[in-house]
């Protein structure tokens, strides 16, 4: 046995094994450290703050849980949300995330470690990313071996596709859900491999945790049955499959119904029926195989086959009838929007309006996964080559998740783990092949030749192989003297005697260095994307000064703090639903609508108020007791995520409920353009949103041209006037503008004439002092 490079021979196998496991532990510790550390960019660049929108609600709920205990949280009715309806929080929330933080909080406080609940919430996602790396390690180790597992753990630790949802401060359900997803899949694979009900039950427990934590649990609910079904169809039914699936399903389904938000859905809705169907099918198949083991007559076999098919058809028929009769709820709109990407836009604009529900753009695959996206198909092919039961799982997962990731941006998150696993399998196979020191066995004379060529050290492996081949080749080959024919005959003889392999250390080195180089680039890419793209809290914005230093734009908190300090506790603030959670969390004021978009009509009401003229909007505002209206305006700063850019969605959602009063085409110019300058349509200019956004905007520029820097359009010199609202507060960079709704006139006039009268009396009405200053 020749080796490409010298191997030490005096080491005992135990030493090797111990060193390997020690190295694994050290490597895993480093991976965890890297996973946590790379998520801390957000804290270092900004501060320890909760990010974005939904996390603000989770944070608020967690504070309630930590302060008042679990029972209070469970029965929490929040009268300040969805005013005047209120919201039953305990029954409309996935409590897993809050419960996790609450347990950690109480645990630390039990040991007299007074850690602030906010810091626990901020750092929960990075902490769980280390656990995700561990779960991915275990999962991949089942697929191939621990070394592939380590690669997968390293990939999932730093891949931007997962970091995007789990940076410090991104306190959302996904923070713990991906860990639960991977651990459930790992336990399922383990249960299937061993045929152990213990692992099936453990999978069910983690499935329960997943159900309590994230609405995406339906992915597991369907992945595992699909895997079981495919194995059945492939003729791979076994007792192990029966044990694993049934123990998982029986316990998992019952436990998932304990979560109040899920309730009876697992026995009532179509999304969960696939799992039930496979469960029933497995019972039938198991019974049939049991009977077959006792009787082996041909006739009976036929009878059995027919009865199994009949029962399957009957079951499917019963399912259809029950759906038809309304005992089982049909598929929901969210589900349809997964198959028909245009569906949501047509029927449920509120789902389509969320940016993360848009189809994924191609570059984001590279941005989020970089080199893994190239290795991913190779890894799937590797799975096909072995095709054990667990490889079938990875293949199905890869296909399903790739499709979903293409449909919706946010489902990129479910694709990322399988990409990491497959890429790790592919890369580790490559490294295994090229690190392996043994060279292929060759008949004696060739060994000498190739050994010589290796000893020379100058020739490549092909040259070595070619020499060997040509020497071994019969005298007939002597006629062909060119190197090409030499080479051909060499490859031929190699192919015939299966002399595939790598000769020499240099050939190995080329490939290994190349692979390491790719990995280094991957790390650089991940770090860059994480620090630049995914670490912004979006509550606090950052820009760069001309000298390169960072400039923090803190308008949101300025406005919310103003609300908190200057308005009564029970003041009702109306805004578009995006900002509902933030207002509730940071300003602690009553909101009309928020990010829990459960009531479309209520949101449409707000949309209607925003898109109607003042006179129409005013009664709506008064009926809902609105005291303040809050709009986001980016025109001064060039902040593109503002309300004017979201305005068309408000119009569309309002149009869905009041098609007679709000019509989308009215908001465009006759040429079909969406404009805000002097060519803007009449309806547009009269709408409350337009008026509130551009009120006194041109005054800011003195006599100069007022330019909206998001839309690059000139705003008319004579700006809109407001009769029913008055400006209450505008932040430093004009990002948040707050208006106070006037009460009815005390003399019974309508506000327009009252205003005109007041203006006729004295030319200038006292306007509220605002602390704004113009910055360019």
């Amino acid at each position, binding site marked *: 046995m020749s080796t490409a490079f010298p191997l030490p021979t005096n080491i005992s196998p135990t030493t090797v094994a111990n060193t390997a496991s020690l190295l694994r532990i050290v490597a895993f510790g480093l991976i965890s450290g890297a996973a946590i550390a790379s998520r801390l960019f957000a804290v270092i660049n900004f501060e320890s703050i909760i990010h974005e929108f939904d996390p603000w609600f989770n944070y608020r709920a967690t504070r309630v849980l930590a302060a008042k205990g679990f029972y209070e949280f469970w029965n929490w009715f929040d009268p300040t949300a969805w005013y005047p309806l209120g919201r039953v929080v305990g029954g409309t929330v996935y409590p897993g995330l809050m419960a996790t933080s609450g347990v950690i909080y109480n645990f630390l406080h039990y040991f007299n470690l007074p850690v602030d609940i906010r810091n626990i919430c901020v750092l929960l996602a990075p902490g769980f990313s280390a656990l995700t790396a561990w779960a991915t390690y275990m999962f991949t180790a089942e697929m191939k071996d621990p070394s592939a597992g380590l690669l997968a753990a390293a990939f999932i630790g730093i891949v931007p596709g997962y970091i995007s949802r789990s940076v410090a401060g991104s306190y959302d359900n996904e923070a713990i859900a991906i860990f639960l997803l991977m651990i459930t899949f790992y336990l399922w694979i383990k249960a299937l491999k061993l045929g152990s*009900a*213990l692992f099936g*039950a453990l999978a069910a427990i983690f499935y329960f945790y997943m159900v309590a934590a994230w609405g995406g649990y339906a992915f597991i609910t369907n992945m595992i049955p699909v895997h079981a079904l495919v194995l059945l169809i492939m003729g791979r039914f076994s007792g192990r499959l029966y044990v694993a699936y049934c*123990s998982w399903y*029986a*316990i998992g389904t019952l436990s998932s119904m304990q979560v109040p938000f899920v309730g009876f859905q697992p026995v009532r809705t179509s999304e969960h029926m696939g799992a039930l169907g496979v469960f029933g099918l497995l019972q039938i198949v*198991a019974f049939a195989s049991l009977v077959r083991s006792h009787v082996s007559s041909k006739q009976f076999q036929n009878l059995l086959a027919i009865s199994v098919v009949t029962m399957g058809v009957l079951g499917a028929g019963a399912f259809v009838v029950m759906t038809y009769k309304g005992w089982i709820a049909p598929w929901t709109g969210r589900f349809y929007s997964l198959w028909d990407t245009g569906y949501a836009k047509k029927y449920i604009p509120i789902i389509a309006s969320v940016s993360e529900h848009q189809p994924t753009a191609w570059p984001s695959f590279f941005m989020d996964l970089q080199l893994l996206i190239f290795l991913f198909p190779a890894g799937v092919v590797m799975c096909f080559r072995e095709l054990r039961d667990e490889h079938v799982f990875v293949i199905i997962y890869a296909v399903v998740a790739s499709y979903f990731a293409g449909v919706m941006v946010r489902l990129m998150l479910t694709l990322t783990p399988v990409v990491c696993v497959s890429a790790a399998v592919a890369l580790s196979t490559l490294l295994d092949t090229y690190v392996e020191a043994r060279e292929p066995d060759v008949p004696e004379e060739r060994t000498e030749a190739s050994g010589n060529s290796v000893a020379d050290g100058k020739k490549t492996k092909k040259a070595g192989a070619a020499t060997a081949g040509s020497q071994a080749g019969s005298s007939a080959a002597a006629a062909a003297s060119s190197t090409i024919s030499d080479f051909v005959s060499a490859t031929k003889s190699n192919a015939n005697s299966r002399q595939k392999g790598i000769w020499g250390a240099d050939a190995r080195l080329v490939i290994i260095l190349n692979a390491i180089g790719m990995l280094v680039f991957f790390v650089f890419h991940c770090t860059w994307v994480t620090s630049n793209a995914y670490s912004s809290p979006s509550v606090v914005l950052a820009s760069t000064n001309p000298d390169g230093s960072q400039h923090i734009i803190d308008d949101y908190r300025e406005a919310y703090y103003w609300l908190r300090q200057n308005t009564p506790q029970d003041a009702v603030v109306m805004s578009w639903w995006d900002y509902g959670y933030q207002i509730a969390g940071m300003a602690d004021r009553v909101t009309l609508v928020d990010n829990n978009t459960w009531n479309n009509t209520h949101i449409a009401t707000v949309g209607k108020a925003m898109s109607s003229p003042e006179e129409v909007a005013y009664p709506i505002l008064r009926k809902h007791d609105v005291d303040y209206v809050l709009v986001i305006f980016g025109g001064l700063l060039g902040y593109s995520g503002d309300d004017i850019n979201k305005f068309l969605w408000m119009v569309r959602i309002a149009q869905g409920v009041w098609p007679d009063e709000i019509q989308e085409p009215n908001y465009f110019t006759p040429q079909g353009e969406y404009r805000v300058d002097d060519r803007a349509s009449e309806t547009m200019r009269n709408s409350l949103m337009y008026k509130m956004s551009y009120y006194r905007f041109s005054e800011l520029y003195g006599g100069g041209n007022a330019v909206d820097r998001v839309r690059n359009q000139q705003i008319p010199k004579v700006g809109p006037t407001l009769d029913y609202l008055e400006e209450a507060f505008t932040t430093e960079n004009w990002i948040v503008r707050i208006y106070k709704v006037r009460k009815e006139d005390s003399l019974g006039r309508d506000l327009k004439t009252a205003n005109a009268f007041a203006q006729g009396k004295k030319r200038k009405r006292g306007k509220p002092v605002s602390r704004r200053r113009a910055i360019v």
Partner: protein
Amino acid sequence: MAPKLSTTQSSSGSNKTIQTTSQSPFPSAFSALFNAYTQNTTSRLKFIDAFLVFLMASGILQFVYCILVTNFPFNAFLAGFASTVGQFVLTASLRQQVNPENKLEFKEVSHERAFADFVFGSIILHFFVYNFLG
């Protein structure tokens, strides 16, 4: 533990003879099945099967009650029904694991381990059942 589970195999030939000699196919098929079952199954498995039959009867009874009378405390019905179904499949799993015919398939699950799994699964299941009864 082991010696009791050895009286298996070597009876498929007798089944065939029963099959061919009879006149009408259906009763003979079932009697063949019954005979094969009584001959080939160890008493331990029969004991498990008896429990399975009981669970099935209990489940059917609850289901019939739900359809004919009321499903009113739906969570209580679900808990009871899931208890029988869950116990059924866990017991069936135990049967699969200790069935000597499946010895090759469950290499890593000894009989003691199978029973421990069964107990663990049942405890978890009934914890949720109890919580769901309401």
